[in-house]
């Protein structure tokens, strides 16, 4: 009567493994729901990427102060993430925005190359959001870094060909973005594979909404994606990347007006940590994080949950 029934699920599918950087980092490979050793023997800790921006305008002061001035040089900033023990760097090339500095694709590519060289880590590369500019930037970045497998972000339903072509040209990985919806996520993977990209070169970004700003939706969308993948849907078996930096945009996370809410730096840190824990519990294989203290905590927790490292 007291023998607890067997509760491990038997799944038909598993998550693809994506080799990154110089071949020494791998994302994905899960064979069960996150961190359940009794059904998921993969024991691979989710990767954590530290965010770097190459133009600080609009970047939150409170977060900037945590980097001791090193945020003023994107390469130094990336090296700091490496020193903190993170697994990857996510660089946003905001300087290429014509409404900002309008930096050239070549300059941006040079930044990425130096980050990859100095840190030796895999790099996730994001554009500035201007489609035409980003197309040129990704092409330049792809050609400038040939000895490290990058993740080029991001392919969207209305515009995925340029970035996909840029990635394919030099064997990089594409990040397929979709908007908080399992069907859209699947659709994106189908578009990319029809375009000729192999399953070992696609990572999906199903839009991780942060705590208090839609986390409820993301948590369930992620879970549904992961469950569908494990039960054999081949078009959802790509690793998931969840970006939790938007936790810093939530009013309650950083607000300084109301002392009853407690210290804002600790609060913002927890805001991002909980967003990241929710991402991991629902299936994230790669996290992009902003706060160094938050990233450090999450790395420790992730290692413990995985029992790896």
């Amino acid at each position, binding site marked *: *009567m*007291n023998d*607890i*029934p067997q*509760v491990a699920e038997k799944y038909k599918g598993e998550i693809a493994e994506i080799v990154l950087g110089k071949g020494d980092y791998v994302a994905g490979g899960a064979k069960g*729901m996150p*961190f*359940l*050793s*009794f059904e998921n023997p993969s024991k691979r800790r989710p990767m954590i990427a530290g965010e770097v921006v190459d133009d600080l305008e609009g970047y939150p002061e409170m977060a900037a102060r945590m980097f001791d001035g090193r945020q003023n040089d994107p390469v130094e900033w990336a090296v700091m993430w490496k020193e903190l023990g993170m697994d990857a760097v996510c660089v946003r090339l905001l300087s290429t925005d014509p409404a900002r500095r309008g930096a050239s694709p070549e300059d941006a590519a040079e930044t990425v190359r130096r980050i990859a060289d100095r840190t030796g880590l895999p790099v996730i590369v994001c554009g500035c959001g201007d489609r035409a500019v980003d197309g040129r930037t990704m092409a330049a970045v792809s050609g400038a870094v040939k000895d490290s497998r990058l993740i080029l972000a991001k392919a969207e339903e209305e515009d995925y060909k340029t970035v996909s072509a840029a990635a394919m040209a030099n064997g990089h990985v594409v990040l397929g973005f979709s908007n908080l919806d399992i069907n859209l996520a699947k659709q994106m993977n189908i578009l990319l594979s029809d375009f000729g990209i192999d399953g070992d070169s696609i990572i999906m970004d199903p839009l991780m909404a942060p*705590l*208090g*700003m*839609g*986390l*409820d*939706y993301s*948590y*369930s969308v992620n*879970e*549904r994606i992961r*469950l569908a993948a494990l039960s054999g849907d081949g078009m959802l078996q790509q690793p998931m990347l969840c970006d939790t930096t938007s936790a810093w945009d939530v*009013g*309650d*996370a950083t*607000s300084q*007006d109301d002392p*009853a*809410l*407690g*210290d*804002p730096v*600790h*609060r913002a840190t*927890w*805001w991002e*940590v*909980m967003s990241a*824990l*929710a991402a991991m*519990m629902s299936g994230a294989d790669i996290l992009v994080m902003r706060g160094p203290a938050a990233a450090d*905590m999450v790395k420790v*927790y992730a290692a*413990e*949950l995985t*029992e790896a490292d």
Partner: protein
Amino acid sequence: MATAMEFFKLLPKTNCKDCGHPTCLAFAMQLANGKASLEDCPHISEESRKTLNESSAPPMRTVRIGTGDRAAVMGGETVLYRHERRFVNPTVYAVTVSDGLSDEEIVSRVGYAASLRFERVGTVFRLDCISVRNDSGDAERFSAAASMAAGSWDSPLILESESPSAMSAALDAVKGRRPLICGAYPGNMDRMMELAKEHGCPLALRGGTLEETASMAARAKAAGIEDMVLDTGAVTLKQCLERQTAARRAAVRKKFRALGYPLMNRVGSGEYAVALASVSTMKYGSLVIFDDLKPYEALPLFTLRNNIYTDPQVPIQVKQGVYPIGSPDSHSPIMFTTNFSLTYFTVRADIEKSKIPVWLQVVNTEGLSVLTAYAAGKFDPEHVAEAFRESGILDKSDSAVIVPGLVARMSGKLEEIIGRRAVVGTNESKNIPKHLREFMSG
């Protein structure tokens, strides 16, 4: 819940129709869907009724601490994932009041617990329980502390002691409050069970492993205890996740009765405690007791609980209509927003901060945020104009209309339809006070 076939096997199979259904099988199918009650078949044998009642009971018991409206309700869950069905009873949080504190310290500690309260998104996020803990080792002190804490706290109580005699004294001191008795471990279990029965209180059971916890629960059940909360003895994040997942799957998928009770954790305080609480909140924990919880930890944690326990199908909405803020007059600014409650309450709070009276028009977007609604075609100039017409807001004030900054693109068209000047407001509501002041002076 049993399947239709399981029900069918135990019915008389005479198809006599006395239950109001054409056949026993049809009745069995209604039973399995929860649409009929066993009582409707007068011919079922006593033995079958017993078996069926057992298997048609919900997979997890609902357990209450305290009484009445403010009782903390735990358990009653029927699914593993929230997209299957909404999780019903949000994780209950408690902080500890030690009986090692002086009398004044106890009162101020309870005051602190009460201050962990935030009004958000139209609901109040608050701490649910205090847990009076017998650190002194003294029965009399424990009972005095319990009675003092109970006197300044009108919400549910937990009593924590391993000593049955101290527990008995404290239970006498807070009669009628129906506290959680916390708790029983293998060594004191028999006497704690007696106390739970004698006082009609729920009982927390703590085993060192999941197996031990389940066998304790089975033993308690056999002894006639119904209201239990189980601590699986997890002290790390991984144990918490794995044991609680195993317990929930066993209860829901395998109808394993001995684990069909709400789960709890005692987590201490500080960083690791909050991380454990977060994992427990997401993964099937119904009660978390902290030594201490800081406001900067409480607000994100309460928000997480709120997010996990909302209905994933239905965003929380407010009604379309005009909401006066302050006492607006015939020249006060008109602003509009969506009826997604998160959006409405955020905007409302920031308008209030400006201390400037405003007419706020809420437009029905079926509970979507500004950009989501815009992208879904539910927040276009036509919809907005229609809401204005319905409420007659433009007759209440001759002021210009302030458009949410994120949908600045609609302002031209909107002006055209309503024949009133439309001014583009800020993207983020936190900048509303500054913008409103400029708007009033400009």
